[in-house]
């Protein structure tokens, strides 16, 4: 029993964190918001060079073969810096999906190699997540259709563009006609793969949300220390302290649920749905509380476009229902723990 990360995992996370901090400060984020594409190939390329693209591609296909627990750390960094790029969708969710397909599945190895090289963007489209980020930039899309896996190229689908409150987040709906030509796996293989994929999508959202929560907390603490009112830093008022203390509480209790869920997913735990949904709910909730208390602590400044806080709040709001609404995930928790004869209670923290 060891519920901690290895030195290597933490060092990798630190390196990525330093890289993102330098490459994507808030000014750059603002610039990217103003572009037409909403994402830059330069940034994508640089992230690939840092090893993010290859992170969980199997070693056979030129990847680093790391598992979900690594992503539970890295998605937090992607959230913390509000990275305006769908890297995790390709390098984590799509890569995981392809890896889970039987070896020899059409284009499987080739696509995984391209992911590892950072030379392809693959969107993942599932009914639970109708709005797909950066679909307009995707080279390919892996689409759920009646449990089957379909692979379609950019020219084979329509991309209905929509405008998110988060102006660095470009979301679209996909329209395409499923055919035997587009099918790369049937429902027999596909159903299990999609269940896992849905969990990866949700877990990536959870990790990002938690990173966003931490960033909003940090911004709010900085503001509360520096901003004076009635002759004192506002951070010395109990009302401000207690709000920010509650943000800490939300983050600290969400964090282990994220790691727990990632471990379950990486190890094929039969109750992965339960743990992932718990993590998704806890992390998104932590982000909602951080946003609400963050804007309140910022006062009128928090309601402006100028304060950096807004970029993180909007991302947090947008992620709230991404890869499953709160109710979707609550229902999954209920389906497990309210069932007959289920193993719950203190003895089953890990081995249920």
């Amino acid at each position: 029993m060891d519920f901690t990360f290895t030195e290597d995992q933490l060092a990798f996370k630190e390196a990525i964190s330093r890289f993102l901090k330098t490459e994507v400060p808030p000014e750059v984020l603002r610039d990217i918001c103003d572009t037409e594409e909403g994402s830059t190939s330069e940034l994508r390329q640089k992230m690939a060079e840092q090893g993010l693209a290859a992170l969980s591609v199997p070693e056979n296909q030129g990847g680093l073969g790391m598992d979900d627990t690594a992503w539970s750390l890295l998605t937090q960094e992607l959230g913390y810096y509000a990275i305006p790029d769908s890297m995790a969708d390709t390098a984590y969710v799509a890569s995981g999906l392809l890896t889970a397909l039987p070896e020899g599945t059409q284009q499987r190895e080739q696509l995984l190699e391209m992911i590892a090289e950072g030379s392809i963007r693959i969107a993942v489209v599932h009914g639970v997540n109708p709005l797909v980020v950066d679909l307009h930039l995707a080279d390919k899309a892996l689409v759920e259709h009646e449990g089957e896996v379909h692979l379609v190229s950019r020219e084979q689908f329509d991309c209905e563009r929509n405008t998110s409150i988060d102006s660095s987040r470009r979301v679209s709906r996909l329209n395409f006609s499923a055919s035997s030509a587009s099918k790369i796996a049937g429902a027999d293989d596909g159903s299990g793969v999609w269940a896992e994929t849905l969990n990866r999508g949700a877990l990536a959202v959870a990790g990002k949300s938690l990173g966003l929560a931490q960033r909003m907390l940090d911004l709010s603490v900085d503001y509360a220390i520096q901003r004076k009112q009635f002759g004192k830093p506002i951070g010395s008022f109990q009302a401000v302290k207690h709000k920010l203390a509650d943000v800490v509480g939300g983050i600290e209790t969400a964090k282990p649920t994220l790691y727990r869920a990632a471990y379950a997913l990486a190890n094929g735990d039969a109750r992965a749905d339960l743990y992932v949904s718990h993590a998704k709910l806890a992390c998104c909730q932590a982000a909602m509380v951080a946003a609400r208390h963050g804007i309140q602590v910022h006062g009128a400044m928090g309601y402006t476009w100028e304060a950096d806080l807004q970029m993180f709040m909007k991302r947090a709001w947008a992620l709230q229902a991404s890869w499953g609404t709160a109710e979707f995930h609550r229902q999954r928790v209920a389906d497990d723990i309210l069932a007959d004869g289920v193993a719950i209670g203190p003895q089953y923290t890990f081995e249920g």
Partner: protein
Amino acid sequence: MQLKFNEKQNAFRTEVREWLSNNVPAEPLQSYDTREGFEQHREWEGKLYENRLSMVMWPQDLGGRGCDLIEWLIFEEEYYAAGAPMRVNQNGQLLLGPTLMEFGTDEQKHRFLPRMASSQDMWAQGWSEPDAGSDMASVRSKAIRDGDEYVINGQKTWSTRAIYADWVFGLFRSDPDSKRHHGLSYLVVPLDAPGVTIRPIKALNGKDAFAEVFFDDVRVPASNCIGEEGQGWSVAMATAGFERGLLLRSPARFQQTAKRLVDLYRQYAANHGENGALRDAVLESWMGAEAYAQAAYHTVGLVEKGAKIGAESSINKVIWSELDLKMHEAAMEMLGAYGELRGGSPAALDDGSWLEGFLFAQAGPIYAGTNEIQRNIIAERMLGLPRA
């Protein structure tokens, strides 16, 4: 206790309802935080004014129709039920208006109030200064008397829609040696006066909803002072309760939001099945809005019998702002993945209107005195708890 409207009140309701049903624009106006939308709203306000429906409680000779508070509540109910446009000149009409009524000279009243009611003059408020925020008394902008004029230097901020407005009002330090709430004067300043510079501040929704206003040797005649020179604090405070009070956010606004939320839930339940937690959020919303409405009638009844509104305004402020947040959070949950979409998106379920409301609701616990300040006021003034 008699909870029935009389014939006059019913007749007024009918008149307002009919007029609105014939006149409310079929297409929603553009956002009043844009130049074009601002002018559309000015036009609408002019139309209301023509029919004496802009400021129904103001006296006839100042552009109103002399209604009492009950009739005002009726007006608000019909106004929100009709889905009529947001009111664009409220900072003038609700903050400066009552102050002019109480402290303005006859000349000032006739000069400013009818044009304010008709929105020929649009007003921005200048309550805040940089580094002041909720601490309204820390005014540093100066207005130094020079003969028949004041010479103004300094800066105001968070002036709502000041880049589009015609006038600004606020407190200025007329005695340069004074501190805190002493030595302030309440002045009104045309925004096209030489020396005024306005820099927009973008709100969360990306629109220029606020501005900073810079004053560089701006000269206004002494007749632009409301109340006595140096008495600005008392002048402002005498009616500051209004901003936080009943008039700023009438219950009807939230009752209408609650009704829309009920409709949204019925639609949600039809598509996704019943959801107990969301149902409860919707019930709480409806009950919260209704309780606020009943409290308003109760307060109005007491006011008509001679009671004064005091810290109750602070209770209202906390209640409606937090209710508004909860209602919009519930709506966002019901919209699910589509909640993040702005108006104009093909997949948006409601053309982004709940999202806009959600963004605006975020400001509720902050503007017009943060809810932290309001809770302090409730605790200190109503309960007599000691100051820190």
